[in-house]
């Protein structure tokens, strides 16, 4: 049957075109303003500053580059969230904590392997281990691996203890439980590592590519590993049996169940793939920013939600593109508003997307 479309949906469809028009107009306006600013032209109307102003090309270039880097990290962090959202049918509010725990375990491991005095202090990140790709490559690699493994472990443990007994519950019950998980994990991390913000990296070597872009080795690592992981996931979803099973479950779980897909096993694999990616994302987030704190994942959670929803829930490509777009908004918004409000701008975009096009750019699967 499946024809019980509610009136609300119809209303959304009816209004879809005008709102898209408005969004297009607003975007055009911002772009025009940006071009005028680049040119250094100011448009006045009745002595009021309407459009334009001035901005340097190099300044703009820095914003775009920063936006891309943040965006790749957000996109990578979003893939796991997107997978659990579409396949397990709930918005996981504890996703930020998976990032945090991966990063803490990873950097503690790396700090210990990097060696030096005071193993306890190193393990608890009390002194900056000064990690850097070229001087401590083994420690950083080991940390990355541990970040992935520990997050997988955490994801499986929490699934077993919290979510598995609630498999039949509604999405909203799982969402509330995940808020409990978020508090539990975040403050367990705070209980162990305390609530400070710790520096973990040394000054990174700068690399100039094709005389065009100068990046630190850490940013480069983030970009390369980020893009590679995304491609890996995309290939897995397209070409493996697991990928097919995951897509089937995202489409219709009960149908997937009756057609013989081992739902419980796919669920576990979803946590493994999603958890591993999320741990890596958390680790790379910290590698790029250089500092770590018990709440960084939570602080970035809404940013990641924004990316996933903008891209379309359940779509890996969507998470990537959404991440980059959100990263660009976060940085480019500085052209127009004070830098302490760019996060608010991202959330405005999130709300706008949910209202104008709740299925996102890549028309993901809408869940409960």
């Amino acid at each position, binding site marked *: *049957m499946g*024809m*019980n*479309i*509610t*009136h609300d949906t*119809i209303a959304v469809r009816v209004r879809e075109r005008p709102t898209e028009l408005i969004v297009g107009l607003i975007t055009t306006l911002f772009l025009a303003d940006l071009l005028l600013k680049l040119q250094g032209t100011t448009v006045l109307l009745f002595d009021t500053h309407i459009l334009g102003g001035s901005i340097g090309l190099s300044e703009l270039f820095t914003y775009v580059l920063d936006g891309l880097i943040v965006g790749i990290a957000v996109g990578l962090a979003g893939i796991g969230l997107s997978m659990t959202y579409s396949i397990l049918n709930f918005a996981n509010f504890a996703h930020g904590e998976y990032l945090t725990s991966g990063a803490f375990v990873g950097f503690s491991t790396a700090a210990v392997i990097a060696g030096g005095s005071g193993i306890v202090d190193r393990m608890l990140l009390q002194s900056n281990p000064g990690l850097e790709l070229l001087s401590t490559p083994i420690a950083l690699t080991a940390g990355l691996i541990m970040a992935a493994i520990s997050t997988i472990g955490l994801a499986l443990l929490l699934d077993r203890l919290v979510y598995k007994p609630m498999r039949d519950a509604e999405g909203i019950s799982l969402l509330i439980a995940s808020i409990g998980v978020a508090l539990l994990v975040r403050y367990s991390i705070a209980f162990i590592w305390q609530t400070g913000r710790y520096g973990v990296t040394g000054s990174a070597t700068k690399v100039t590519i094709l005389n065009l872009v100068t990046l630190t080795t850490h940013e480069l690592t983030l970009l390369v590993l980020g893009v590679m992981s995304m491609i890996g996931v995309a290939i897995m979803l397209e070409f493996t049996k697991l990928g097919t099973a995951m897509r089937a479950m995202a489409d219709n779980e009960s149908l997937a169940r009756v057609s013989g897909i081992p739902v419980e096993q796919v669920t576990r694999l979803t946590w493994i793939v999603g958890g591993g990616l999320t741990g890596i994302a958390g680790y790379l987030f910290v590698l790029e920013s250089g500092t770590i704190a018990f709440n960084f994942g939570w602080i970035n959670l809404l940013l990641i939600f924004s990316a996933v929803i903008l891209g379309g829930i359940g779509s890996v490509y969507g998470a990537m593109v959404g991440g980059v777009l959100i990263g660009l908004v976060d940085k480019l918004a500085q052209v127009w508003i004070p830098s302490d409000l760019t996060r608010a701008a991202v959330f405005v975009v999130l709300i706008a997307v949910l209202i104008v096009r709740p299925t996102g750019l890549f028309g993901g699967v809408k869940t409960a």
Partner: protein
Amino acid sequence: MSEAPDAPATEPVLAVDSLKKQFGGITAVEDVSFDIQPGSLTGLIGPNGAGKSTTFNCISGTLAPTSGSVHFQGAEITDAPPHVVAEHGLFRTFQIARELEEMTVLENLLLAPPDQRGESLVHAVTPGLRQRVKEQERELLERAWELLERFELDHLAREYAGSLSGGQRKLLELARALMAEPSMVLLDEPLAGVNPTLETQLLEALHELREEGYTFLLVEHDMNVIMNHCDPIIVMHQGSILTVGTADDIRSNERVIEAYLGGDQ
């Protein structure tokens, strides 16, 4: 335009004209037109996928038709949202009974009547006005108990609707629609999953109510029920109306027999 066979003198209560509904590229319903006479118990029948539910949902406002029109008691309700359709006095039940599970049976009934004073927040909380809310509630309550007795649900009045059996839920749903004193009720497979005793009870109730002046449009899967109880009968097939007539007309109509036996499951 398909007319009811016994060419009535009265204005139709419901007039559906050239209704069409497409989903994407698929046409679920096309060129569906019929009138419903007041005080009738009309049956709408057809094999799976005939477009009964889509027609039903287009009338009740759950779906917006692609084209065509729906008039109820002379007023156009074509694109009206469900609550506006109900405000006109056209109520519906659901195929899978949709009870408000964590509300009691009585609460379910009391919800339905339109124009309740206490549905205004100001009336609900202001001391003087609240007295008038209570007066109206007392009248409604009396009516609710009468209906519960009529449908033999009075012993369950204070239970959560979610604890009722499938058949009892169907009765409750009918009672709930009647609480609103509707001009017409659309019944979506009211007998699905109902045991024979309750089925008899429900059908008797429908006949009684029809004689009291209520109008019903009954969508039903079960051919026998429609044949024995409804007049006129509308037969749908592959998104269009095949024929309209009395049970005898339908029984002797070769196209109907073909449609039911002809591979469409």
